[in-house]
């Protein structure tokens, strides 16, 4: 009974937190800016969806996102490499471009992602070796030898 109560409470709380997250988050993204340029003119944009450096220019680059529109970003391009991931804080201008406030290339992001998979696989193997799932009682239990 206690188990059911805890399961229901935590599920409901997580659902509410998820909804609150979606409806209360303070971030503006490029798509919203492009849709309402007058409204968001001068706003700080901090949310980008997997942003990458596209075509490089002398005074900036074309910002590409995995999900969402591409946009021209004006910034210092020293050290930037096309195709690399990038962290950005920028100001939107209603003419349809961004002015970089803080731009940092994340050159090792791909390595970070793939390196992060290794410990997850190791843990999964250790879990499989140590535990088994009891379908009758619907819980994880130790294997006899573990």
């Amino acid at each position, binding site marked *: 009974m206690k188990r059911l109560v*805890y399961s229901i409470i*935590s*599920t409901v709380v997580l659902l509410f937190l*998820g909804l609150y997250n979606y409806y*209360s988050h*303070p971030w503006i993204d490029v798509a919203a800016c492009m849709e309402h340029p007058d409204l968001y003119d001068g706003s700080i944009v901090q949310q980008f*969806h997997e942003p990458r450096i596209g075509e490089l220019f002398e005074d900036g680059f074309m910002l590409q996102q995995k999900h969402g529109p591409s946009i021209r970003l004006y910034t210092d391009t020293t050290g930037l490499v096309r195709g690399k991931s990038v962290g950005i804080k920028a100001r939107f201008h209603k003419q349809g471009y961004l002015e970089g406030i803080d731009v940092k290339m994340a050159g090792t992001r791909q390595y970070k*992602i793939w390196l992060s998979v290794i*410990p*997850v696989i190791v843990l999964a193997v250790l879990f499989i070796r140590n535990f088994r799932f009891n379908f009758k009682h619907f819980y994880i239990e130790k294997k006899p030898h573990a």
Partner: protein
Amino acid sequence: MPDLISHTVFSHITARLYDRGRTKNFLSGVRLFFYLGVFLPDITTRPVYIIFPATHNWIIFLHTPLATLFLCLLLAQAVHPGMRRRAFVNMIAGAGTHYLLDAFQKQITGNNFWLFPFSWHNFGFDIMWAGTFVRLIPVSLLLLAGTETVIYLASKRK
């Protein structure tokens, strides 16, 4: 966020120092839930929004302490009653060390919303970029080996 190897090493060393070598086989039994707790804030968010970027605003709350607490409580219900409480405590402790290491990362966009849902303020000490953690992986692994060696030698002396 730092990579999960850095997270694992940092959390493992922290746990080993706290444990002071009392546990011989640290990578078995209910202790494994500690490492699950270490990974939980990242594995419930990063892979999802990297593959499906549009989901970011729905799931980023799972990388906050309160959501992690309830997620651990929910996961603990799927564990044998005899080790449920220990699994829960281990997951919470692991997640705690995860958030602690995250606080050291420099960032442009926020990541440490410790007071969510009461505030979206981003906490942290802004010391190292995530890329620096990646470059320091060999050093972290050496530290890990050093810690384990010291614990092994100390236990042999007893």
